[in-house]
């Protein structure tokens, strides 16, 4: 089933993948332009910070107008769009030829869940590669003179790693106010990659299960609505908070929005979603219909 999903899933989503990669490249460029005032190279980590920073907690009286973190929302929306239609299409496309070849109905659902996780992982890997390549091209080749001057000032960091991956801690601190030099590598990995990834996977699984009972487009809309609600309310129960760097404990001081909170929240939410999905798939009637998207 894995090979079947790998092939059919990619075939269903190849144009969407192209669109997703173009969106990632666009935002890599936007991140570079936004970070160019940092006074030092920020590397892929700086770009990722800009993309995933989100917004601080919204208070109507203090903050005034409610603003959405557009890059953050669109990157998550892209992934939701990428995974949202294939499971529903597969169920109805061939009239169930793949479905009846499973031993149990739930095996089909679990196979699709594996596909969703794999697609999300590939999405984040692509994003990371694009950001690193962009840092190399933009800050490396284009900013050579600037970097030589920076080196002459005696900054001590591993040349390649500092330039293209983690950037200059001083530049990151001046741009975002994050004391990144005081954070260990594991803390950075958990907050910048692991938490957004876990949140994405959980939301994608929820969207997949919703698409079993609703039109996939509506399931996508509901998932985006939930993400938007996360921007509005800084509640740990709204998983989108864990995917926004500004809401995490090291930046905002909200202790509940931590990696352990993320694992607990995504674990409970994800398990509940899959259990509901297994109940739904047991009773679902399969009819051959037109594809949704």
């Amino acid at each position, binding site marked *: 089933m894995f090979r079947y999903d790998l092939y059919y899933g990619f075939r269903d989503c190849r144009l969407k993948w192209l669109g997703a990669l173009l969106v990632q490249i666009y935002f890599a460029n936007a991140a570079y332009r936004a970070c160019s005032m940092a006074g030092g190279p920020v590397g892929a980590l700086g770009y990722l910070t800009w993309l995933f920073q989100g917004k601080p907690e919204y208070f109507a009286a203090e903050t005034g107008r409610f603003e959405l973190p557009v890059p953050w929302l669109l990157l998550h929306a892209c992934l939701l769009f990428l995974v949202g239609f294939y499971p529903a299409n597969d169920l109805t496309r061939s*009239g169930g030829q*793949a479905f009846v070849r499973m031993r149990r109905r739930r095996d089909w659902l679990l196979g699709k869940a594996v596909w969703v996780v794999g697609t999300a992982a590939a999405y984040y890997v692509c994003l990371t590669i694009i950001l690193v390549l962009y840092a190399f091209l933009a800050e490396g080749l284009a900013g050579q003179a600037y970097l030589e001057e920076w080196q002459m000032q005696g900054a001590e960091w591993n040349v390649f790693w500092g330039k293209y991956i983690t950037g200059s801690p001083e530049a990151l601190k001046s741009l975002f106010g994050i004391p990144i030099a005081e954070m260990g590598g594991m803390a950075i990995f958990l907050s910048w990659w692991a938490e957004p990834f876990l949140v994405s996977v959980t939301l994608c699984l929820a969207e997949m299960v919703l698409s079993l009972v609703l039109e996939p487009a509506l399931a996508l809309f509901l998932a985006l609505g939930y993400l938007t609600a996360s921007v509005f309310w800084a509640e740990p129960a709204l998983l989108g908070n864990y995917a926004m760097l500004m809401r995490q404990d090291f930046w905002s001081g909200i202790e509940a929005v931590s990696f352990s909170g993320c694992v607990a929240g995504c674990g409970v939410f994800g398990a509940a979603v899959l259990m509901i999905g297994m109940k739904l798939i047991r009773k679902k009637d*399969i009819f051959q219909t037109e594809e949704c998207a």
Partner: protein
Amino acid sequence: MKITVTHVSKEIHGVKVLKCVTMTLEGGAVYGFLGRNGSGKTMMMRAICGLISLTEGRIEIDGRVLGKGLDFPGDMGMLLETPVFLPERTGYENLRLLAAIRGKITPEEIVSALEQVGLSAEDRRKVRKYSLGMRQRLGIACAIMEPPKLLVLDEPFNGLDEGGCRMLRELICRHREEGCLILLACHDREELESLSDHIYKVDGGVFTQVR
């Protein structure tokens, strides 16, 4: 294989599409369903394949109740509605992808299934270039490639030329002799009567055995 259908009803959006159907089906025979469009033939086939849930009643496959511990009849091949395949792959490649799910059969068996229906595994044409008859043949190959004990064929003669019809008749007879339980829905009354050991007339979700 033995299938027991007991007081099966199915309601969709308030409309009863299957009404208290009871029948016993055994391997080594062809059961024909005769009825006009929308009478319930395909719906009954879907119920036996495990694709729909029942409003009332139960279906037992060799003593095991479908929907309770058994989601699909094992060793089943089905051709329901229009067969749909990946248009940018060849027929052989399409069948290989589906066969890989269970991993029960070898590439040689896929080749044999294609040859039985008059197609070739060597044919490099993509499915998008197939005629209706070729797609139908590919659908039949898909149904028989993993040697089935239950064969569900809904309007299998659609789009087939004379040679294809002859091929399909021989294939049905051969599988029946091998002990396969075959469900066959067909608009052509003569075809159905010549192939079927038992015939059910279907009208408004009601199944009446006429032979």
